[in-house]
Each structure stands twice: as structure tokens, then as C-alpha cells.
């Protein structure tokens, strides 16, 4: 006898409920064990903060598994206890007392103490060591261990960048083994306090780390091993992910991002960052020494068009590189009529030169800008140069206009200060005014986070108005993973916190 329609539907419903319980298959918690394979863009240069260079996304992704910062910086720029449990400033904010977590050990079994922290920072600050991280923390005079778990940092002046520095995941912020560093081995065989222990580094191929069984926060760590594979070619990296050779990659290639978003076999996680692209206008080179010409260029260029053509809208529009909002930015939005009016007011033919890299992206950017400036009546000559040459020409004041960037960081302040202060060797647009110096110093020595934010905004508004630099586009990071990879948490500076993840 055939079952009635109703009975058949009931049977199907029961079967469906049994196969797909409420909450779905994804409701399960972390799974312990397994190996996560991460595809990196570049190899790490070295793990010693003095001997190595600046990390970059690849370096931070590896180093973050082995070494840790004193404080945990969130995406919202809040700072939570990590290796440090508390921190307190004195009345004039020139001295910070930091209390460390007890019971933490380095991977070689030695205790993590205030002495290790003080030695780490003093080593960076020692001019004899010529550390390239030193330039970022010049506001710090020194550090001393008061007792086994208390460090006192002395600053040259109040510095709201202090906590961001402690939370940084670049060279200076991550705690290294002082003994391994003193033995000269930290660079190639790092020892830290982190959730994973360095196992192997096959140069140009992979870095392997294994779970630290004695980690002080074991409950958050699930993987047994992380293998970082060096895959410099972006297409190769993406195809490796699709083929299942790797579980997670970072990419900034618009075509791969768009393709990945359509591909159901991978998962795309986006995260907005601070920092931005930068366009430099050398205010010491005529006719760019005239603010009308600079502003005409500002009105003629279009961040929207560049974002659409070059980045396929994978990067956000940005009026400044700061992680917080500013009410007034004075950003010059694309307006050909205003550009032409300024050109007419200037009254002479305007011929400019722009250096750009010889990469396809560099060429394309140059061509877009050339066409945009042409519409405003400005002639632009493009000079393609190698990346090394571009950097050299900018630093030796042998350029008119060039692309650059403001790197994403916990604290954008040091970069803005360097780019703006008249006596800074990093003032590469050579735009020097008393007002800009006052704004830079006020920003640097601001006595509260709110005062710091306000002075940063004021500085940005001044720069945008005078157009020695043009900000944009903003930073947007894309991490692409295989579906089984879980535990992705909000991350900073494009660095996925892979050490907290697991494979479901």
C-alpha cells in the first residue's frame, strides 16, 4: 500500500531532522590537534629585532606564534593584559610602571622576568646596536627592572604611543629570549614565550612551529603544528589554496579577491586597517612650491577612479590614514573645474614629473594619474624606475611626485611626525612651516589619548589643505581560507592570528 502524501512528508521531515540537527554542523567547538598550513608572501629575514629588518605581514604571522607582546592590542585600539597584567603612568606621564604576568617561561625553560623586558628594550635603544627599530621608540629613554615582575619605563616626554608600542607585533614589541639574543642565535633560531615553539626553518621553503606544551594560556591554543610555506607568486599562492595545498593565505590581488568571493570552496575574511596609500608632492621643486599648483593636482586626481581601475574597489576610500574618525579633514575631492580654475590662476604652463615603479601596478597608476591631470590642463611626464631607485630618489630629493605609503600601525603618529616635522630626516616632501611644526610637536607630546586624536586630525587637515601629501586609498586586508579553518578572530595589520585557529 502506498503511503499517503502526508506520511511521506512526515517521514522526510523526521529524516531531515535526524540528518541536520538544530544549530547545524558548524555549532561544534574548537577541535584540538592537526596542522595548519599557511601560505606566506615572503620569507622572514630574521627574528632578532636588532639584526633583522622590519617584519611585514609574513614576518608577523610567523613571529606572532613564537613571541608575544606585553599587551594585546585589539582592532578598536584598546589594550588588554597579555604578558603584562597592568600598567600605570605617573602624574606627568613620563614614567610607566608595568607589572608582568608571573609563571611565564621562555621556550628554553628560563623564566620571563622584568630583567628580560628591560634588556630587550635597552638593547634596541642602545645607539651602538644601530637597531632599525630604535627610530620608532625614540620617545623612550630607557627601561629598568624594579623587581622580578615590575618594569619601569622612562620617557623623554609624555607619549601616547607608549601602549601601542607595547602592543606592537613588529620587531620591537615582541619579547625575545635575552640569552638566545646574547648568544647571537635569535635571528635564525627564535625563542619566545609564545604558544608555539620554533622547530625548523628551511630558507625559501618553510618555517615549522610546534605547540608549546607549557604555554601559560593553553586553553586558547588548539593546533598541534603550523607550517608556514613561502609562496611569493600571488597566483601560485591562490591556486595552492584552491588545490588544498595550503589552508590560509593573505592576498591583495584584486582578481584573486573577487574570484575568491565567488568561489564557494574558500572563505574570505575582510578586515579594515589603518594607514593608507600616499602620494608625495615635493614642495621644494617648482612649480610644486606653489600651493595653487599642489591643490590643482589634488583636485585633478581621483581616488575613486584609481580605486575602481587599479584595485577594483577592493580597497576603501580614505581621506587620511588614522584609525579613528576626524570631523574635518579638508580632503580635496575630485573636481576638474576647481583644478582648472587653479591652473588658470597660476597663469603659467604646468609640467610635472612623476616617478613610479616598473611593476604593472606602478605603470597603471602612473597612466591613470597622467590622464586625470591632462583633463585639468596639467602635463605629466612619467618616469618608471626600479623600486630601489624610487626609494633612493625620494630620500635624496631627486623627484617631483611619487607614490609612497603610510604603514598600518598601532600608532600612526610617529610616521606623521616624521613626514611633517621640519627637522625630521623623513620629511620627504620638504614642506616646512612653523604651523606644521607646532602641530607635529603638539601631536607628539599630547597628554591624553583624546588630545592626541584631536591633534592628529588637526595635522591631517593642515596637510590636506596644503596638499604636500595626498592620502588614499585605505587599507583593507583579505585572508582567504579553506572552509575547515575556524577560529579567525579580528586581526590587526593584515596579520591573521593563526596561532589561535583550529581545523574543524
Amino acid at each position, binding site marked *: 500500500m502506498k503511503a499517503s502524501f502526508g506520511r511521506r512528508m512526515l517521514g522526510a521531515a523526521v529524516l531531515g531532522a535526524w540528518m541536520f540537527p538544530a544549530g547545524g554542523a558548524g555549532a561544534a567547538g574548537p577541535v584540538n590537534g592537526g596542522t595548519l598550513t599557511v601560505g606566506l608572501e615572503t620569507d622572514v629575514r630574521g627574528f632578532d629585532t636588532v639584526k633583522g*629588518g622590519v617584519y611585514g605581514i609574513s614576518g608577523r604571522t610567523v613571529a606572532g606564534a613564537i613571541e608575544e607582546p606585553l599587551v594585546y592590542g585589539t582592532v578598536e585600539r584598546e589594550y588588554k593584559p597579555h604578558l603584562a597584567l597592568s600598567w600605570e603612568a605617573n602624574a606627568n606621564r613620563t614614567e610607566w610602571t608595568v607589572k608582568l604576568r608571573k609563571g611565564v617561561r621562555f621556550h628554553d625553560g628560563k623564566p620571563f622576568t622584568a630583567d628580560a623586558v628591560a634588556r630587550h628594550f635597552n638593547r634596541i635603544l642602545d645607539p651602538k646596536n644601530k637597531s632599525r627599530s630604535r*627610530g620608532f621608540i625614540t620617545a623612550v629613554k630607557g627601561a629598568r627592572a624594579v623587581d622580578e615582575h615590575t618594569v619601569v619605563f622612562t620617557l623623554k616626554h609624555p607619549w601616547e604611543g607608549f601602549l601601542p608600542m607595547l602592543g606592537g607585533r613588529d620587531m620591537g614589541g615582541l619579547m625575545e629570549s635575552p640569552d638566545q639574543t646574547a648568544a647571537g642565535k635569535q635571528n635564525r633560531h627564535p625563542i619566545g614565550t609564545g604558544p608555539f615553539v620554533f622547530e625548523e626553518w628551511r630558507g625559501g621553503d618553510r618555517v615549522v612551529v610546534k605547540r608549546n606544551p607549557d604555554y601559560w594560556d593553553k586553553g586558547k591554543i588548539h593546533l598541534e603544528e603550523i607550517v608556514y610555506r613561502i609562496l611569493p607568486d600571488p597566483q601560485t599562492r591562490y591556486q595552492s589554496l584552491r588545490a588544498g*595545498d595550503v589552508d590560509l593565505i593573505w592576498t591583495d590581488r584584486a582578481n584573486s579577491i573577487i574570484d575568491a568571493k565567488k568561489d564557494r570552496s574558500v572563505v574570505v575574511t575582510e578586515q579594515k586597517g589603518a594607514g593608507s596609500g600616499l602620494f608625495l608632492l615635493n614642495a621644494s621643486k617648482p612649480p610644486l612650491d606653489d600651493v595653487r599648483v599642489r591643490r590643482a593636482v589634488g583636485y585633478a586626481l581621483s581616488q575613486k577612479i584609481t580605486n575602481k581601475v587599479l584595485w577594483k574597489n577592493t580597497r576603501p576610500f580614505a581621506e587620511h590614514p588614522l584609525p579613528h574618525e576626524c570631523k574635518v579633514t579638508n580632503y580635496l575631492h575630485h573636481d576638474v573645474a576647481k583644478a582648472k580654475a587653479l591652473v588658470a590662476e597660476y597663469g603659467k604652463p604646468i609640467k610635472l614629473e612623476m616617478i613610479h615603479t616598473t611593476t604593472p601596478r606602478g605603470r597603471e597608476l602612473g597612466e591613470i594619474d597622467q590622464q586625470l591631470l591632462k583633463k585639468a590642463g596639467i602635463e605629466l611626464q612619467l618616469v618608471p624606475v626600479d*623600486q630601489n631607485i624610487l626609494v633612493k630618489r625620494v630620500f*635624496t630629493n631627486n623627484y617631483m611626485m611619487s607614490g609612497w605609503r603610510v604603514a598600518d600601525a598601532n600608532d600612526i603618529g610617529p610616521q606623521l611626525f616624521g613626514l611633517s616635522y621640519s627637522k625630521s630626516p623623513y620629511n620627504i616632501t620638504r614642506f616646512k612651516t612653523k604651523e606644521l611644526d607646532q602641530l607635529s610637536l603638539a601631536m607628539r607630546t599630547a597628554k591624553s589619548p583624546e588630545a592626541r586624536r584631536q591633534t592628529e586630525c588637526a595635522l591631517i587637515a593642515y596637510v590636506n589643505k596644503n596638499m604636500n601629501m595626498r592620502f588614499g586609498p585605505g587599507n583593507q586586508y583579505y585572508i582567504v581560507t579553506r572552509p575547515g579553518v575556524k577560529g579567525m578572530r579580528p586581526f590587526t595589520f593584515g596579520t591573521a592570528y593563526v596561532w589561535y585557529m583550529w581545523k574543524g
Partner: protein
Amino acid sequence: MRYLLGRLRHLLIVLLAVTFLTFWLVNVLPGDVAYDIAGLDASEEDVQQIREELGLDRPFLIRYWEWFTGVLRGDWGQSFRTGERVADAVLSRFPVSLELVVLAQLFAVLLAVPLGILSALRSGRMLDRVVAVSSFLFLSVPAFMMAILLIYVFGLWLGWLPVTGYEPPSAGLWTNLRTFILPALSFALAEWTVLMRVLRADMIGVLQEDYIAMARAKGMPMWRILWIHAMRPSSFSFITLLGLQVGNLIGGSIIIESIFALPGVGRLLIGAIYARDFMVIQGCVTFIAIAYVVINFTVDLCYALLDPRVRSQRAGA
């Protein structure tokens, strides 16, 4: 012994010439490795400091002489960027490149020899024509294009083989070989065509010799005629070409190692060129020059093994 000493002298001259030329070329290239090391956020003082640390402010000839005498003592210097010893960097990557080259040649030979022999035996017939057309088809596809096609078909579509990466032999023989199949085939599918054509042409000539006709007349099996009597005299050009192709493979390995993310000498070299890491460039070029000379020497030795006339000539000399 005299022959060996002569080859050693030849090696030294080649090394001097190649390394000096490379050192000079890298120095005249635009760009400054100090800027690359310092990064975008560094000041001019930082850059100058790096130049002094690395000795880049010293005269070119002094730097070259110091490097060359260091190499003779076994000190190949250090990478400017990573601090890794150049000798360690090159020697750790050499087995990967060697395995790639050997497997590529092996695949090429496995394809070329049977097809070359069959084409020679069936010269002018359908099989010969099919093999000829196929060979031109494969020859017209550059190695990097072949690599991408193989990745798409066998890596992504069929999912049979890994797209990237390297596993050492300690991870298991099959695990190791799997990672080389696609890269080696990328080379081999172009290389076999030339080997096959050369072998076919020489074998057609040899098969027309009187002693082959005599062997046939005596009723010798065809396989014996081919392998014992025809293959040996047909293989001189074949072996010469094998040796020359190794040079091609060493150069082409830069691209294939990059596409398949194999940590070989080629990838090390291309990374060093982009970064203006002089010491690593010099180390790689020196190593490749030594490898090339040794391979040519080996090819010469093979002639002596195959052809008794060469052995007699050398003994007489």
C-alpha cells in the same frame, strides 16, 4: 691526469670570468640594496649606516678580490638580507634543483628514446608522422605555459598531484616524488622532442650501415640489434644534447621553481637579484658555473666510455 689538470685549469678560468662579469654587472645595475634592507620608513642616515656595515662604500675591485679569495678559503660570505651563510643557502637548496633537473631529464629520456627508436624504425610511416606532429606541438609550448596547464589539469581539476611545495626524501619516497612530477614534466614535455628528433635522425643513419644489415641477415633479434649495435653509435649527439639541455634546465629552473614554489637554487637566485643581494647572486652564479663545467666534463667522459676510439686517442695523447 694531464687531461684532468687541463679541465681544472679550464674550470678556474671559467669561474674567474663568470664571477667577475657577474659582480661587475650587479654593481652597475641601478638600485641600492641598502635601501631595500632599510625599508621605506628609514632615513638617509640609516641607509648610509647599512652601506658602511655591508662594506658597500668600498671600491668594487677590492670587494671582488676579498670575495674571490674568501671563496677559495671556503667562505662564500653572508646574505645581506637574512644573514644566512651563502654556502649554506646554496648547498641546502642544491638537492632540490638537482632532483628537478635529473627527473626532468629522466622523463625526457623515457619519452624520447622509445619514440625516437620507433620513429626511426617506422620512418616515413603513420607512426613517425604522428610522433613528429606531437613533438612540434609540445615544442611550441613554453615551459612556464606547460606548467600552468599541468597545474590546472592535474592539480586543480583532477586533484591528483600537489600544485606547489616540496617534501624532502625523508618524508617518504613517493611523497617526495609527487612534488616533482608536475615541475619535471613541465620541462620534459618540451625537452623530449629535440632529443627524440636527434636520436631518430642518427638512428636512421646507423640502421642503414652494412653491419646492421649483416646482423639482420644473421637472424639477430631486432631488440638486440637496436640496443646493442645501433643505440650506442646513435647516442653521441643524444648525449651531447643531454649535456647542453642541463644548461637550459638550470636557467629555466628559475621560472619553474617560482611557479611550483620549489626551494631550489633558481628561486634563491631570482630573489637575490630582485633584492640586489650581491653575495647570494655571486654564490649562485659560481655554483651554477661549477655545475655546468662538471656536467660538460661528465659528458666528455661518457664519450670515452661509449667510443673506444676516443679512449685510444686520449691514451695516445
